[in-house]
């Protein structure tokens, strides 16, 4: 008899998730149809390569991940503005990219975002082409702010969902500002109050906010069906989505989009206990959100972009107190559910490497940007799978020969014995055709294991 999910060990859960990833199904449960037997073989080989790397084994060759946001659009002369507002243009540009470059794994085109949804909701966290930055801009840009105030900590700690709904959402979406007028949903506890509790939903501005939500929902539903179709077509060609879900370090949750850089740094000094308590509340939420994505997408990989724990951003003491224990708890939580955390370490991680040894062996993938790769291999080669390190500067301003030499060194030194995935060091909006081709084609040729 098959074991129930909750009776499985983390390793058994992971095996199950990999098997699901390797044999995709249609929503009705039938087998997914590839465009050719060769495409199916390629798809399965790519999943197997990923699995081999995670297990620190030698795959048939070094696999390749290109981390990009608008690179496929910019490489093909299509404006990011166009792909944010016209899914047909998104499909054309991103499909061209996959067909011409053939990386093993791709970053979902959904990361391009949908300009119409942002407009309907009056989204404050981004400036995007045509909105705050020129229509010709090469991508969107993040607007940092103190979207959560210091005095909001108790509300977040008491009831995160209520804080998100009635305080945070009204601040980051202009159209949802009236939601701050609705009462907490936990007020609904007594039948005689069921009528009176609906009064706020009759207030015209609240109704406008609800209409905006419905309008955004309609747009999102149409958009995601098209994105889904694009991804299915990539899969039918044998390409593999790099991730199923996403999560973050609890510190980054607060630092990136809630408190902002300045706010969070003050918090470490002025209200450290509140900060710790808030992260404790966020940890299970981060795990649940990541696992949920992996299950729905039938892909075990959880992408975690790491930001404020990089070299220089905090002291070792602060890292040990405010960053690492909470991040480790998220990683262990994900691993226990059979997921594979893929952590993207933008900047340098040289001063943090010793902590990574505490992780369960052969369970995580770390994509490095500017970290000393030789030291990573030496210190952590038996613990974590390693990826990355091809610099954006090299790819955008270097020559084909420079790129080949750089990749050769990575394959020779870091790829030795397996456990390595070729990847660029940061998510890129721009691209340069000859160097991106060189990175991919050279790795396919030279990165074959004997």
């Amino acid at each position, binding site marked *: 008899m098959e074991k129930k999910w909750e009776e499985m060990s983390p390793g058994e859960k992971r095996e199950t998730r990999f098997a699901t990833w390797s044999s995709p199904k249609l929503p009705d449960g039938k087998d997914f149809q590839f465009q050719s037997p060769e495409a199916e073989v390629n798809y399965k080989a790519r999943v197997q390569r990923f699995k081999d790397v995670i297990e620190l084994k030698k795959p048939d060759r070094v696999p390749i991940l290109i981390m990009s946001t608008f690179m496929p659009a910019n490489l093909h002369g299509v404006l990011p503005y166009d792909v944010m507002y016209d899914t047909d243009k998104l499909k054309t540009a991103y499909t061209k990219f996959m067909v011409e470059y053939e990386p093993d794994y791709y970053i979902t085109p959904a990361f391009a975002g949908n300009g119409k949804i942002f407009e309907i909701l009056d989204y404050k966290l981004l400036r995007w082409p045509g909105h705050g930055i020129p229509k010709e801009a090469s991508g969107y840009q993040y*607007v940092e702010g103190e979207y959560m105030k210091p005095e909001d900590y108790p509300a977040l700690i008491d009831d995160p969902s209520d804080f998100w709904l009635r305080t945070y959402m009204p601040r980051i979406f202009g159209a949802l500002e009236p939601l701050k007028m609705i009462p907490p949903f936990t007020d609904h506890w007594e039948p005689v109050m069921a009528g009176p509790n609906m009064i706020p939903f009759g207030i015209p501005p609240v109704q406008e906010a609800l209409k905006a939500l419905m309008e955004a929902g309609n747009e999102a539903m149409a958009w995601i069906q098209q994105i889904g179709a694009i991804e299915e077509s990539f899969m039918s060609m044998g390409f593999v989505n790099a991730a199923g879900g996403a999560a973050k370090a609890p510190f980054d949750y607060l630092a990136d989009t809630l408190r902002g850089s300045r706010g969070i740094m003050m918090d470490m000094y002025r209200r450290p206990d509140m900060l710790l308590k808030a992260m404790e509340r966020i940890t299970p939420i981060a795990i649940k959100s990541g696992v949920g994505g992996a299950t729905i997408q039938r892909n075990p990989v959880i992408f975690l972009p790491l930001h404020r724990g990089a070299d220089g951003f905090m002291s070792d003491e602060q890292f040990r107190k405010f960053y690492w224990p909470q991040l480790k708890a998220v990683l262990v939580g994900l691993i226990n559910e059979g997921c594979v955390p893929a952590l993207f370490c933008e900047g340098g991680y040289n001063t943090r490497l010793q902590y990574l040894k505490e992780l369960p062996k052969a369970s995580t993938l770390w994509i490095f940007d500017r970290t000393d790769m030789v030291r990573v291999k030496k210190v952590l080669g038996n613990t974590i799978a390693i990826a990355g390190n091809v610099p*954006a500067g090299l790819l955008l301003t270097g020559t084909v020969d420079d790129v080949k030499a750089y990749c050769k060194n990575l394959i020779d030194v870091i790829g030795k014995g397996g456990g390595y995935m070729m990847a660029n060091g*940061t998510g890129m909006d721009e691209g340069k055709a000859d160097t991106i081709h060189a990175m991919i084609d050279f790795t396919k040729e030279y990165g074959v294991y004997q």
Partner: protein
Amino acid sequence: MAGKLAKLLSDLKEPEALEYVEKALAKGSDPMGLLGEAKEGMNIVGQRFASGKYFIPELVFSGEILKSIVQMLEPHLKKGEEAERLGKVIVGTVAGDIHDIGKDLVVFMLDVSGFEVTDLGIDVSAQKFVDAINNTGSTVVGLSGFLTLAFDSMKETVDAIVKAGLRDKVKIMIGGGQIDEQVKSYTGADAYGKDAMEAVTLTKGWIGG
């Protein structure tokens, strides 16, 4: 030996430092003397950052404490009491890029290190940099950029400075996000720095101080 205020500020003792200033002012202490001590404190912060004892949070936090101290001192300071500056520097985030955190740290560190900094802000066009060089007579220009699009904006800015005939009058440093030696060569800048302290070291090397 650092004064009491310099020590409190450099040790990031916020309430104690503010209380000290309040009491000193009430007792009639010289506000310029207190400001001098606060600057001495910031110098110690800078040294600790350079030596790897302090990190970005300490820079930012000390800056916040300094801001509060200056606010308390300001009503007591006579105009024109500004201390001598070592030299002039222009700093800005290049065209197309709206990120300011790294740029602000560089401005802050240059300022507390005694330089007169013209902060042009974010998304600064090449022409604005050229105009600022002409208007201020600054001899060092710092170009900041977080996104990869900044590579080309930086190159265009350096080119515009060359075209304006100002290239031999200024030293140009670049920094931020994905900037490295490779990008430095591409843009035609004189140097790149990987953090705010390196910006200070480069500037000191060029201007002195």
